[in-house]
């Protein structure tokens, strides 16, 4: 039963490319049903960890257990219970949105791929664009389709590698809402991001990866306690450009 409650367990994970050491002994655990955010700047090794956990890359040493299966000795079993949404929307541009979803449902050997595609199209607001080629989609729509493809077959554990990088603010909020919905539905989500706000908004547990090691890990509140206690100061809060942009766009849409 203990294994059932731990979705990912990583111990002393090391990986280097040629002579450059990327991961220098990474340890962490992700509990089932939580959203875990791996926070780090570009080149910190986030994607390398995701690739090892999703069986795309072999570690040099250390162990990684995903859904109770070792990624290096039992990759087939791992693949059956996970899904990966990579850094770039991995959608087929020449196919339509519907065809993309049907293709993935078929590759997962699910019954009734058409029905699954219909449901996902509806759920992700892609009904109107379902039969258009993906090359005509906006960046946000591609990302939505990308995540929808990952959810075919309801995998227990969802990897999202920098899901909002390169998206405009509106699309980013859409993705956030999707992740919140997934978390609400009890899925385990492993998220990497370089945006602090994203981790703050979405994650139950945040781990900070820096130079190949996890240097801090915990809930947002726990992480806050690592720093000197907050002083109360009064500062006039100016709206950020993002606030202004979203407000202006919202007003325009209402008209």
């Amino acid at each position: 039963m203990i294994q059932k409650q731990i979705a990912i367990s990583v111990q002393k994970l090391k990986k280097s490319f040629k002579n450059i050491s990327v991961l220098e002994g990474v340890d962490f655990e992700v509990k089932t049903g939580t959203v875990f955010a791996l926070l780090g700047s570009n080149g910190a090794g986030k994607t390398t960890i995701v690739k090892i956990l999703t069986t795309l890359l072999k570690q040099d040493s250390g162990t990684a257990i995903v859904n109770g299966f070792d990624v290096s000795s039992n990759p087939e079993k791992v693949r059956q219970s996970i899904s990966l949404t990579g850094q770039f929307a991995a959608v087929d541009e020449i196919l339509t949105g519907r065809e993309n979803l049907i293709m993935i449902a078929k590759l997962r050997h699910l019954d009734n791929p058409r029905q699954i595609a219909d449901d996902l199209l509806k759920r992700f607001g892609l009904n109107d664009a379902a039969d258009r080629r993906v090359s005509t989609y906006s960046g946000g729509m591609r990302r939505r389709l990308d995540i929808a493809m990952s959810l075919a077959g309801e995998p227990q554990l969802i990897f999202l590698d920098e899901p909002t990088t390169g998206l405009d603010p509106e699309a980013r909020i859409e993705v956030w809402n999707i992740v919140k919905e997934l978390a609400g539905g009890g899925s385990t989500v492993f998220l990497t991001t370089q945006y602090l706000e994203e981790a703050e908004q979405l994650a139950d547990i945040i781990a900070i990866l820096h130079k190949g090691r996890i240097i801090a890990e915990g809930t947002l509140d726990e992480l806050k306690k690592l720093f000197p206690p907050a002083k109360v100061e009064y500062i006039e809060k100016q709206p950020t450009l993002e606030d202004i942009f979203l407000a202006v766009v919202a007003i325009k849409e209402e008209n």
Partner: protein
Amino acid sequence: METIKTYFFMDVGVMFGRSMRHIFRSLDTIMTVTLSPIAIMLLFVFVLGGAIQIDTDNYVNYLLPGILLMTIANGIGYVSYRLLLDKQRGIFERFHSMPIARSAALWGHVLVSLVSNAISVTVIILIAFIMGFRSPAGVLPWLAVIGILGLFTLAMTWIAVIAGLSAKSADSAGAFAFVIHLLPFISSAFVPVESMPGPVRAFAENQPVTPIVDAIRALLSNQPAGNEIWSALAWCVAIMLWTYIFAVRVYKKQG
């Protein structure tokens, strides 16, 4: 492992269907592939042909086998290109993180290469027919020709797979085709090798295009073609095996 094996053909089928959609939604690629062989055929038959001294009353008949090989050499460029796109857009990563046979994605591309090249080759044969190509060959020789062309396509396709997998950009993905394009010119495709100076002739006689061209030419004109056929088959199979082994190694290494 059991389930993966049972589903292998189904998965390859899905991949095949996907790539076939690519072909039929971009039929201009067939035009691009056939355009330059048609141009070369016109050039040689109606411009240079008069000056070429060959013991034949129908130069189109003489020329066609070499033109067919050029068409295939053109066609496989798109295999590299499509593979490169799949790699760059993260589509391979998505497939590889799913519980499907790893090689299914590759085989889809390879099978589609056979189909698209068959279409291009048919177009060329029809054009040649309009230009005066005639063949007294019966069903069996034609089947042998199709078999040789199929093997040649497979051999070339695996070369294209290596190029596509190891290329960093679309330009370098197509660069290898340049060498393959030159080979028919230094072979018996346009003029008999006996007319070439010593070293060039030695090269022409000992490179794959010459025996393949000779075999197809003999088959199409109902001449005995024993030695040429075996030599052509040996070249095709040898190239195919080497390139296949190498391509699979590159594919595995890329994780």
